[in-house]
């Protein structure tokens, strides 16, 4: 492998990884707080992408800056996330993890098929939001788009980390999963915390949609399901419920995918999954997770 190929792949891997990491954050936040795999999370990306697909021409026609459509996507995604939570997830919250899992699967199906009915099954091309040149760095072609994407990802993650650690609501978000009843006793409105978690997670999905569309400007109604699954795996890999774990897992999955693709293009998915299995068997709670045994 030449240096330039390696470097190119590294950048690609980081780019892919940053996308996964952002999606994984949404999974991990929701899982961390209500112990539920929100399978519909992947589809929030699709919603974000469609929002941009429809609003970019609007913004351009109205003479407004195109990046405003990213804001629109964030708002739409957050609203959809909160609505899904209130309508579908809240009623089944007490019914056990099996019901929650199935409801999430059903919502995923619902959103995908609703999108098909509304927007059609034909793939659509999203216009570019940034049109940045490619620069040459030490003989390696570096598209500035990609650099910007990675930068946005890093900024989002850092911001989220600060939010969770420093703000009041962030602290509430950390306390609810530890002991829900105790959180209620100290005056935390658990339902509100859960709603906010969904809003933030979905907003992150919108940003992920932006990053994805910058790289692959294609929108389909089922674009979220595979990507969501891989991002979820990234979250589990890093240790689900742990925010730095989601970032680490996302970057790892991205890098593994891109590098394995170089050597065995047909097998990269299988190898990614195999690595997940091995890691979970060695460390059942993920790379950064803590093993908690059941008290007897």
């Amino acid at each position, binding site marked *: 492998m030449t240096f330039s190929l390696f470097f190119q792949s590294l950048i690609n891997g980081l780019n892919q990884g940053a996308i996964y990491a952002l999606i994984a954050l949404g999974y991990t936040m929701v*899982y961390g707080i209500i*112990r539920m*795999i929100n*399978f519909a999370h992947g589809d929030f990306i699709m919603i974000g992408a469609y929002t941009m697909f429809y609003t970019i021409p609007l913004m351009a026609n109205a003479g407004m800056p195109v990046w405003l459509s990213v804001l629109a996507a964030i708002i739409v995604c957050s609203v959809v996330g909160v609505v899904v939570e209130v309508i*579908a997830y809240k*009623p*089944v919250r007490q*019914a*056990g*993890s*099996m*019901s929650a*899992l*199935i*409801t999430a*699967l*059903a*919502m995923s*199906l*619902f959103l*995908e*098929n*609703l999108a*098909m*009915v509304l927007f059609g099954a034909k793939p659509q091309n999203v216009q570019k939001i940034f049109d940045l040149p490619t620069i040459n760095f030490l003989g390696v072609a570096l598209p500035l788009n990609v650099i910007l994407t990675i930068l946005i990802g890093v900024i989002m993650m850092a911001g989220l980390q600060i939010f969770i650690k420093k703000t009041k609501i962030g602290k509430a978000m950390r306390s609810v999963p530890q002991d829900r009843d105790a959180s209620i006793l100290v005056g935390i409105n658990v339902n509100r915390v859960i709603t906010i978690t969904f809003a933030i997670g979905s907003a992150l999905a919108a940003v992920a949609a932006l990053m994805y569309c910058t790289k692959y400007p294609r929108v389909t109604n089922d674009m979220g*399901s*595979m990507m969501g*699954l891989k991002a*979820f*795996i990234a979250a*589990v890999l890093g240790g*689900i419920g742990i925010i730095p774990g989601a970032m680490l897992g996302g970057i790892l999955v991205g890098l593994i995918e891109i590098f394995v693709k170089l050597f065995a293009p*047909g*097998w990269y*998915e*299988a190898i990614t*999954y*195999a690595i*997940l*299995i091995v890691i*979970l*068997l060695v460390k*059942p*709670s993920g790379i950064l997770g803590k093993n908690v045994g*059941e008290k*007897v």
Partner: protein
Amino acid sequence: MEKKYKISYLINILGVIAVFLLFVLLFETKVFGPSTQYIKGICTTACYTIIMVASLNLVVGFMGEFSLGHAGFVSVGAYTSAIVSSALAGKGLPDFFLFLTALMAGGAMAGITGVMVGIPALRLKGDYLAIVTVAFAEIIRVCFCNFPITGGGKTMSGILKLSDFYWCYWIMAACVAVMYMYVRSRFGRTVKAIREDYIAAAASGINVTYYKVMTFTVAAFFAGVGGGIYAHYMTAMIPTNFNFMYSAELLSEVIIGGTGSLTGSILGAAFLSSLPEMTRQFSKYRMLVYSIILVMVMIFRPGGIFGNWEFSLTRLIKKLTRQEGGKKDSRNEKTKGGV
């Protein structure tokens, strides 16, 4: 005790034969006119879906663990049986035996895969197990995409059309009967004990891992048989048919029917597999409707439509013949359903 059960088995066998004769009557007299063949096809679809869903219910309902990778075992069965049947075709074997051999081979291969997946995966529990089963199913799918013998990612076509409804009906009945007997034996009992409390199960001398892997393997075997029927009904398939969404569909049919109820699996699978066909004219909306039904069931009946209730022909006959005894029977039912 023993005699009572044997009579009940006999009654159930008669019931299965009666239903079969009803189907034969309907199809042979061509009640449905030109669409007879089409409806037969739907019924065949229902047969293999029932086998797949009931087998998944062994894991989800009776063992109490998520498996989101059942389609992986289905695909192993489908591809293996297709390869076996095409290898044996033209060797002078009667069609039915050819079909049966292919299905057994498919089931056996899926069972072996089940052992290989189960031993490592079943050390995990809950959501982690769910995600590892997804991972295994995806690995299986990628393998089929890369093996030349399975079409190398392209459609594998020209599989013999062997899935005749009448055969499939009996194969389905046999498969369900075997699973029912399995669940109502010491194996089902230990597995349910593990579901209730695995620590207490181990403290009662139950080898938790062994029985979990065993049940998982039995489930994988029948998933493979179901896959075999699928392959010989569709006659062409591609690995993406067996993706995550297919696993999710099977799982949701288990849940809608009722976890821990084979009756629920049968009716749920039969209904949901024919639903797409029945609503073909609104095909655009059918998955939309399906997902809404799913959410509704989860909100209003979290245990599934049938919970863990099992239909019993013997009980029904008893109820019909002596109504005054009805009250006593219904009290017994409650515990029987959970057993």
